[in-house]
C-alpha cells in the first residue's frame, strides 16, 4: 500500500476539554433517571413490600445523598469524562514504565462478559461451577510451569496484596518454627517496588534496604552484612525497576536460606523473562505475577487486577483458603490447609481475571510466551538505543549492556543544560497524545523517566514515541518556554501541586470536600 511518509512528524493532537463538573454538582432535586414502578398488588401480597422485613436497627434514617440526574445527562457526563482521559487503547502506552501496559485483547473481554461467566455465583455448589474451577486449576498448572513453583493461589487482587500475602506467610512460617519473635527483619532493595518494603512493614516487620552498587546491582557486600539470624525474608524484584537483571541472584537467595530466612520474588517485572528464567532455579520459595501486567488483563480501571501467588511444596499448607484441586475427575475447593493464613480476599479472588489470563496464555502457548519476552526485550532495547542518541539523555548503570524489559532514564544533563525538569517534560508529552511517568518517590535516579514498551507497539509506534520525545528534548534546548508553559492541548493546564503532600488539603470523597470547605 502506498503511504505518505510521516517520518518527520509529531502528532497534531488536541485533547477534548469539557469543563465538566463532578457528578454531585450536577444533582437537581427531584430530577429522575428512572422511576422504579411500584410492585403490583398480587406480588406484594405474596412477598410483602420488601422494606418492612428489614430490622428497624438496620434502616437508615436519612436518604442517601446520591445525585439526582436524568439518564441522558448521566450518559453525557461519563462520555465527556472518558474523552478527557488519555485512554490506554488510544495512546501509545509506553510511558507507564514498571506497569507493563500491554494490549488487553478485546476477545478476552468478550469471553469474560459472557453470561456463562457473569451469571455464576461464588456460593454455588462445586458441581455446578466445574468450568471455572477447571480454568483456575489449569491456569495454576501454567503458572507452575512458568515459575517452577508447586501451587498457586489467585486470591490476591493485585501485586501489593500478593506481597502482603507473602509477608503473612513468612510470619506464619516462622511462628510454626518457633522463630516469630527472633526473625523481625525483612531485606529488600531500593529498586524493588516500594510495596516490597511497605507490605511487610504493615505486617510489623522492620525493613532493611540495600542500595545499588556502581553497576546498579544490589550491593552484595551490604547484603552480606544485612543477613542475620533476625532475617525473616528477602523480598526482591529482578529485574528491578531500572531494567537491570541481577545475574548473581542465586548467591543472594542462598545466603538467606542458609541464615534460615525465606526468599520472596516480586515477579511483577516478568514480561522479559517468560520462558527464560524461573523463580525456582533462582532459589525462591514464593513468587507472584501480576495478571494485569504480564498476562494481559486490564489494570484497575478495566476491572480488578489479579496477583497470582505461587509457593514451593513446603509452603502450600500456608496458602489462603481455598485452593482449587482435582480428584476423581472432579474439580473441588480445597479448604484442607492446616497452616493457612486465612483469607486475603473473599471467595476465590477474581475469576474473570483468571479467565482472561488463561485465554491469553492458551492463545500463545509456550512458544508464544517466549516470543512475548523476546519482543518485549527487543522493543525496549531499540527504544533505549534511540533515546540515548539524544543530547542530555542518559541511563545510569551497566553501561554498554542490554536492559531487560524497561529502563529508568535520567534527564539530569538536560535539566542542567536547559532548566527543564522531567516533570516539565511529562506535561509537554500530553500535548502529543502520550504521557510518561517519572519514577517512584524518592528519586534515587535524578530527573527520572521510566519507559517500558512491552511487546505491544509496532516499530512504527515505537518510532512515533521516540520522535515525539526527541522533538521535546530539542524544544528544551531551543525553546524551553513552550515546555515550561505546557500542556497547551490538554484538558487541564498546569495544576497547583503545593498541596499534594499535605493530607489536610486532600478531599478523597465529596463528603470530605463539603466538610473541609464548610469549615473554611
Amino acid at each position, binding site marked *: 500500500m502506498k503511504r505518505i511518509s510521516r517520518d518527520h512528524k509529531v502528532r497534531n493532537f488536541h485533547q477534548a476539554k469539557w469543563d465538566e463538573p463532578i457528578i454531585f454538582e450536577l444533582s437537581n432535586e427531584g430530577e429522575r433517571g428512572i422511576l422504579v414502578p411500584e410492585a403490583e398488588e398480587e406480588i406484594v401480597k405474596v412477598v410483602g413490600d420488601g422494606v418492612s422485613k428489614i430490622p428497624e436497627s438496620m434502616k437508615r434514617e436519612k436518604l442517601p445523598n446520591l445525585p439526582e440526574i436524568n439518564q441522558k445527562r448521566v450518559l453525557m457526563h461519563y462520555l465527556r469524562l472518558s474523552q478527557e482521559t488519555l485512554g490506554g487503547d488510544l495512546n501509545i502506552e509506553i510511558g507507564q514504565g514498571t506497569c507493563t501496559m500491554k494490549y488487553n485483547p478485546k476477545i478476552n473481554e468478550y469471553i469474560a462478559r459472557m453470561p456463562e461467566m457473569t451469571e455464576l455465583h461464588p456460593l454455588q455448589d462445586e458441581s455446578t461451577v466445574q468450568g471455572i474451577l477447571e480454568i483456575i486449576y489449569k491456569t495454576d498448572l501454567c503458572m507452575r510451569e512458568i515459575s517452577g513453583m508447586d501451587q498457586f493461589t489467585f486470591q490476591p487482587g493485585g501485586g501489593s496484596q500478593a506481597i502482603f500475602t507473602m509477608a503473612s506467610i513468612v510470619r506464619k512460617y516462622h511462628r510454626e518454627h518457633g522463630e516469630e519473635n527472633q526473625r523481625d527483619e525483612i531485606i529488600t532493595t531500593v529498586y524493588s517496588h516500594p510495596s516490597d518494603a511497605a507490605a511487610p512493614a504493615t505486617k510489623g516487620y522492620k525493613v532493611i534496604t540495600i542500595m545499588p552498587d556502581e553497576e546498579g546491582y544490589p550491593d552484595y557486600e551490604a547484603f552480606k552484612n544485612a543477613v542475620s539470624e533476625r532475617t525473616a525474608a528477602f523480598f526482591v524484584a529482578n529485574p528491578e525497576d531500572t531494567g537491570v537483571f541481577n545475574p548473581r541472584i542465586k548467591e543472594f537467595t542462598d545466603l538467606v536460606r542458609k541464615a534460615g530466612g525465606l526468599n520472596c520474588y516480586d515477579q511483577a517485572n516478568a514480561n522479559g523473562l517468560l520462558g527464560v528464567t524461573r523463580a525456582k532455579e533462582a532459589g525462591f520459595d514464593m513468587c507472584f505475577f501480576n495478571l494485569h501486567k504480564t498476562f494481559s488483563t486490564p489494570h484497575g480501571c478495566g476491572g480488578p487486577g489479579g496477583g497470582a501467588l505461587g509457593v514451593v511444596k513446603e509452603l502450600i499448607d500456608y496458602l489462603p483458603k481455598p485452593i482449587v484441586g482435582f480428584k476423581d475427575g472432579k474439580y473441588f475447593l480445597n479448604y484442607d490447609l492446616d497452616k493457612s493464613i486465612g483469607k486475603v480476599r473473599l471467595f476465590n479472588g477474581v475469576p474473570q481475571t483468571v479467565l482472561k489470563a488463561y485465554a491469553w496464555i492458551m492463545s500463545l502457548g509456550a512458544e508464544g510466551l517466549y516470543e512475548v519476552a523476546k519482543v518485549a526485550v527487543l522493543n525496549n532495547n531499540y527504544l533505549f538505543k534511540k533515546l540515548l542518541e539524544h543530547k542530555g539523555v542518559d541511563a545510569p548503570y551497566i553501561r554498554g549492556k542490554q536492559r531487560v524489559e524497561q529502563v529508568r532514564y535520567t534527564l539530569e544533563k538536560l535539566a542542567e543544560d536547559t532548566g527543564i525538569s522531567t516533570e516539565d517534560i511529562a506535561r509537554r508529552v500530553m500535548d502529543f497524545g502520550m504521557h510518561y511517568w517519572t519514577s517512584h*518517590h524518592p528519586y534515587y535516579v535524578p530527573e527520572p523517566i521510566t519507559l517500558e514498551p512491552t511487546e505491544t507497539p509496532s516499530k512504527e509506534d515505537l518510532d512515533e514515541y521516540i520522535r515525539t520525545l526527541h522533538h521535546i528534548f530539542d524544544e528544551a534546548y531551543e525553546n524551553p518556554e513552550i515546555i515550561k508553559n505546557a500542556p497547551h492541548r490538554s484538558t487541564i493546564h498546569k495544576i497547583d501541586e503545593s498541596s*499534594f503532600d499535605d493530607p489536610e488539603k486532600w478531599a478523597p470523597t465529596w463528603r470530605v470536600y463539603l466538610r473541609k470547605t464548610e469549615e473554611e
Partner: protein
Amino acid sequence: MKKIGLIVNPIAGMGGKVGLKGTDGTHILDKAIRLGAIPEAPAKTIKALEKLLPVRDRLLIVTCSGNMGQEEAENLGFQTKIVYKPKKTITDSNDTKLAAKKIKEEEVELLLFVGGDGTARDVYESVGNRQLVLGIPAGVKIHSPVYANTPEKAGELALLCVMGKNIAVREEEVVDIDEEAFRRDMVRTQLYGYLKVPVDKKFMQNKKAPTPLGEEATQKAIALDIVDHMEKEICYIIGPGTTTRAIMQALRLPYTLLGVDVVMNRKIMKKDASESDLLNYVNQYPSKLILTPTGGQGYLLGRGNQQISGDVIKKVGKENIIIVSTNSKIIELRGKPLLVYTGDKKVDEMLKGYYRVKVGYGMEVMYRVEGE
C-alpha cells in the same frame, strides 16, 4: 507592598576564575584582583532579580547601598529602601553581618543573599534561623544547601514567596570548608548552623505513592523509632544536627543544635557536652552514640563534632553507634560513602564498614562508612 531583602557580596566568586578557591580574607582578594579577577556577583544577582520583574510594581527591595544590592535592583527598575551603607569600597564579612541584621528588622518576606559558603555563615550569624532566607549562588565554594541550584531558580522561588504561594520551608545546613585545607586540595567541611529556606514542592511530588513524607515528618518518624527503643541505664550521646534534634524534641528535652547532648533514662544529663564530659560518661556507663551525616558530603564525624573524639568512640564501641538520616540526605550522596574523620587514623580505620542507617520508623538502609 511586599518586601524582599537583598545582600550582595560583591567580591564573591572572584577567586574562582583565577584559581584561588575562595575569597575569605583580604590578602586573597588583593591577589585575585592582581590576577585579573572580575566581579561575578552582579550578573548573577540580575539573573535572579529578573524573575521578579512580573511583580515589580508590588515589590520593595530592602537592600544596601552601591554594589551591595542597590545598583542591581535599581538597574532593573525596582523600588529600593537602603538600610545599610558600607564604610569602605571593598566590603568584607562584617558588612554582610551588619546588613543582614538591619534588613531583618524591616520584616522582609524573604532575604536574598548573593555569595558563597562564607556569605551564608555571615548571614547565619546575624539572623540565625529566625528569618526566611535564600542564597543566590555566586561564590567559589558552595557546599551549603541554602543556595538554589542556579540564580534563576532562586529568582523563581523568590517569586513564589512574593506571590504568597504555599511553599514549604526547610532548615538547611550552613557548612563551610576550611579554606586553608581547600587550597591544599583537601575538602573538610564544618557545620556552622542552619538557615530557614523555601523549597520548591515540585521536587517532592510523587505520582505512584501519594504521601511522600516531608523532611520534618521523616525526622519525627526516625526520632520516634529511637525513643521507642531507648534502653534504661544506657547513656545516649546525641550528636549535632536537625535529625538528632528531633530525638530531643520527641523526648521533650532541652538541646543544642550544634553541640553534643547526653541523655539517660529519658533525662538530660548534660547539654553541650565537651570531650572530657563525654569521657566521663562513657567511662561510667554503657553508652550509645547517635550520629547524623552532613548533607552533600556525608560527614558523620569530624565536621564540627570534635568533642566526639577517637577516645570517646573507642570506649563506646563501633557496635553502639546508631546512624540516623533522612532518605533525601542518603540520596544526595549518590553512592558516595559516609565519612569519618576523627583525627585518629586507627579509629577511622576501625569505624569503616557497613552500617544500618535508620531512615524512618522501622526502616533502615545498609550504607558504607569510610575514612576520609
